[in-house]
């Protein structure tokens, strides 16, 4: 019960906190809507108008990815800069239970991306909002958010090993947008990039959401997204444990 309360309170606190951040509002609302707009114009001018809703959904998942990347990737580094990392680590609560709600909240504010791109597409470009399988859609969206949030645990625990976590975040935004097929189908990309896509939750999350919205069977992709999430949780927990022990042993917890 106390674990559930901790996760809920932590998630709610970080969700509110991120909502008040201008940077994250740009990342989740403005950025995806802009990418969607560019894609709309490119598809319209390139005579691919049937793909506009496809672009909306891809841009929405891009927003979830961006928020997770910047929010989770820098999560521990920010705690370090603010001088709260030592306090957080020294509490009796396992570090994973403190980091988990944070990373889940970063992917959760991706809901703003979904709302903004769909509303923007409907209002400005008249893209019809018709969901083929509403129930599957309602499951696929939280599953994607959960999958990316758990990927965030891996990002948070590994980026801290690199002294410049923000630079890593800056570097990874575009490659993952490209390689996971959010807007460009994987079939257009070189074959060697496909295995990379398969181990990334956004690939399966966007497939699940598109399958539910545009038609198709979204359930296998939803299951893979959740399965990957579980794997990320295990990897993230191990990495966090390693980082925490190493930092305690070498007394480098607060060193930037």
């Amino acid at each position: 019960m106390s674990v559930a309360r901790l996760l809920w309170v932590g998630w709610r606190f970080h969700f509110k906190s991120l909502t008040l951040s201008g940077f994250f509002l740009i990342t989740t609302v403005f950025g995806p809507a802009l990418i969607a707009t560019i894609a709309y114009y490119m598809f319209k001018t390139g005579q691919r108008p049937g793909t506009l809703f496809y672009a909306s959904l891809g841009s929405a998942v891009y927003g979830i990815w961006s928020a997770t990347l910047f929010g989770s990737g820098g999560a521990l580094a920010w705690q370090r800069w603010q001088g709260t990392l030592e306090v957080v680590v020294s509490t009796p609560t396992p570090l994973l239970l403190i980091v988990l709600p944070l990373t889940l909240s970063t992917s959760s504010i991706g809901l703003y991306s979904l709302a903004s791109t769909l509303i923007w597409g409907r209002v400005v470009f008249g893209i019809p909002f018709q969901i083929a399988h509403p129930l599957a859609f309602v499951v696929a969206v939280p599953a994607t958010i959960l999958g990316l949030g758990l990927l965030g645990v891996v990002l948070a625990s590994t980026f801290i090993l690199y002294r410049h976590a923000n630079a890593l975040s800056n570097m990874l935004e575009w490659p993952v947008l490209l390689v996971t097929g959010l807007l460009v189908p994987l079939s257009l990309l070189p074959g060697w990039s496909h295995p990379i896509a398969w181990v990334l939750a956004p690939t399966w999350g966007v497939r699940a959401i598109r399958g539910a919205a545009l038609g198709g069977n979204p359930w296998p992709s939803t299951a893979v997204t959740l399965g990957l999430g579980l794997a990320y949780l295990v990897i993230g927990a191990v990495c966090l444990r390693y980082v925490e022990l190493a930092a305690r042993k070498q007394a480098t917890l607060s060193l930037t």
Partner: protein
Amino acid sequence: MIAFLRIFFIGGLIAYRGLFNWIRPAIYIPTMLVGPLFQILFFAYLGRYSRLQNDAFFVVGNAVQVSAMSGVFSATMAIANERQFHTLSPLLATPANRFAVFMGRSLPVLVNGLVVSAFGFCMGYLLLDFKPPASSLAPLALVVTVSVASCTAFGLTIGSIGLRARDVFLSANLVYYLMWLFCGVNIPLNALPGWLSQIGRLLPLTHGIAAARRIADGASLGSVSGLVWTELGVGAAYATASFLLVRFFEYEGRRRASLETF
């Protein structure tokens, strides 16, 4: 005159090193090279999928635009960070020529922008279907230099607003993103609604990108001179605006004793 040149060149370089003392390869390579490279690749592949234009269109557009990583962000920081770092008051207490002080630091920013842009072009040549004729390289370099200079002047304008505004870096982010849409980077201007393309024509890079595309396609420098002069004019206008804003905010900051208050 010697003092002016010394402050412009040497002072500009020292100020740049001071304000960007945190830049090192571990930050520069992921942020200024790898990120922009994948921006170019992403839009080129999106272009293939949308069937809008060929690779060259997106390589030229994005390779010029990624210079704004330096032109917008670094130029903004080159002015606004004096206030953030609380070095603005001592700086403005000096009798040094303000034009030399603030415009001098734009030179390293410009060089940095050219490096990022050149890297983008090289990667476009190596990884994508972008093979400009050898004869176009010199005029292309000239056009890119003019475009990056114009963009740097625009960044200085945003930076000078940072002498007053609370958080100018948010605006710099917004502007950088909007350039993808407004400046004809990924969508031809004639495919945009009239009002959007009109805004684009008032921004830096728009005319430079158009000129660079035609040169990469084999056109002569003379045939795009109108676009190049327009780009230069846009840059000169922003440089003037930047200088006037710096002077205005300096005057207002002194009058209200609010140079470094937020």
